[in-house]
């Protein structure tokens, strides 16, 4: 039905808010990244100076390196674990819904809560290492969270714990969407269970792999709450991610333009992952 004035009128506040508060703000921040803003916005043009400075900053390099390590491990492990759990649960388990609930509940928690719980769990003085010592295993050492080389892996552990259940739910839905007659046909054809998964079921899950990847990747790039709660960026800045960098440089170090530039780069990274996916999905919807 063609729209009269009323639907357009009622839709326009949302349009206004999204255009201003999302795209308008993005434009503003992009603009800021080309200015000389420090503690407060200043509108003198600085060209690409901030980006040059940004790329030369050691803190930024550390943040990028950490993001690469974190995102790489997080995505791979969460997908593998999610897929693995989904396949296990797909085996006609008794108490299936109990298991599903257990693997999925971390998604209901705030990253701050997750960070707090894991922070002390991984703390050598009071957490796992100490428990092992008390059980008699004196030489057990697990000081990752205090170690600037290893702390980032603690973030991976907590992040995987939080979101694997989500990936599992996605794969489980995908597994159950496969036609059971195909599985039956494969059984009659002589395929063993692992062959059925490998040759028939998993190849059909391509779209789920893509969706899971896009979502995990974008969550990795945006990760902030978890890092703050778990390590607060430390020890030192060994668990800085671009999101932490942005916050620090904008609000604490009074280099607002550099902070703006870093957020622009974050947006570009997310766009690179999400936009192709969105385009192909919208095209699929249009083609019916």
């Amino acid at each position, binding site marked *: 039905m*063609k729209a009269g004035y009323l639907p357009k009128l009622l839709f326009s506040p949302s349009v206004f808010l999204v255009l201003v508060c999302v795209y308008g703000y*993005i434009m503003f921040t992009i603009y800021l990244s080309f200015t000389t803003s420090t503690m407060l916005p200043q509108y003198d043009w600085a060209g690409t100076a901030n980006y040059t400075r940004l790329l030369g900053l050691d803190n930024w390099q550390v943040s990028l390196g950490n993001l690469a390590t974190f995102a790489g491990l997080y995505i791979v492990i969460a997908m593998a674990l999610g897929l693995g759990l989904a396949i296990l649960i797909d085996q006609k388990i008794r108490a299936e819904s109990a298991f599903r609930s257990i693997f999925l*509940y971390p998604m209901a928690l*705030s990253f701050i809560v997750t960070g707090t*719980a894991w922070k*002390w769990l991984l703390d050598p003085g009071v957490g796992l290492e100490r428990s092992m010592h*008390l059980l008699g295993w004196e030489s057990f050492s697990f000081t990752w969270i205090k170690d600037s080389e290893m702390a980032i892996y603690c973030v991976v552990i907590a992040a995987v*714990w939080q979101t694997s259940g989500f990936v599992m739910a996605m794969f489980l839905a995908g597994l159950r969407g496969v036609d059971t007659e195909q599985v039956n046909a494969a059984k009659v054809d002589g395929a063993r269970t692992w062959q059925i998964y490998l040759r028939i079921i998993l190849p059909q899950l391509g779209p789920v792999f893509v969706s899971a990847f896009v979502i995990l990747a974008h969550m990795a790039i945006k990760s902030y709450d978890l890092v*703050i709660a778990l390590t607060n960026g430390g020890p030192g800045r060994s668990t800085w991610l671009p999101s932490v960098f942005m916050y620090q440089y904008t609000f604490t170090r009074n280099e607002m333009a550099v902070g703006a530039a870093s957020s622009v780069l974050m947006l570009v990274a997310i766009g690179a992952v999400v936009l192709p996916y969105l385009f192909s*999905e919208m095209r699929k919807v249009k083609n019916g």
Partner: protein
Amino acid sequence: MANAHTHAIVHVHGASGIQPRLDLARIALYAVLFACAVVFLMPVYVMVVNSFKPLDEIRSGNLMSLPIDWTVAPWLSAWSTAQIGVEPTGLRPFFINSFLLVIPAVVLSTLIGALNGYILTQFKFRGANLMFAAMLFSVFIPFQIVLIPMAKTLGFLGLAGTVKGLIFVNTVYGIGFTTLFFRNYYAAFPAELIRSARMDGAGFFGVMLRILLPNSTPIIVVTVIWQFTNIWNEFLFGASFSDFSSYPLTVALNNLVNSSTGVKEYNVHFAGAFIAALPTLIVYMVSGKYFVRGLMAGSVKG
């Protein structure tokens, strides 16, 4: 033509054809699942168990063991006397802040999403698809990129450092998701129902209030649960746009835990974390499949 063979009648156990027999592979399967379940439950177990221990028991003992000296003091402290920032108020005022924030924000963003979903699926106008795509993308952006201009705007509107400001921010950035949910739901809604309502004379609001909304319970539940969970757990906006009086619970908790001064009261931290987790955990346990549906809807394409 009955057969003359006299085979013995074989009765097979578990012969519903659905439950496979219990053998070594199945036992291994359950063992692995059980082990994973333990790992997944462990952090919350640790959190709860240690929130009931006095501090010296935590320091001298094992994080994994049950309390010897059960005490609810950490909970009382976390709730009403713990040091948040410079004030010993406990988490209680911030728990209230979160509720004051979440309820209006959820209601508003859900209503707007429903309205948008209805308009986008029932009416054709120029730019509709483009706007929907724009809203869809807005869900993915790193919110760091809007912090500075939003701070300015809130200052300009006199909402800086207030709960109302947070309501505004969370509502605006929730519109993308809620519109997505309702739009997908209404796109699958039987068109004949709407057409026949129109033929009966229902206008814009008539169709919405009498046909769509009454039949939207599943998606309303999903959206409310999703928004409640996300906004209750939200941290970045809270940390950026609130001051001490308007901190949401997540910010207060982080403050409590990350305060670098003095003695680390792990038991209080754990109690506080559990207090923060409780509402969304309860919603999760009660809503079950609706929670999952929200996750799926949020992950599936537009």
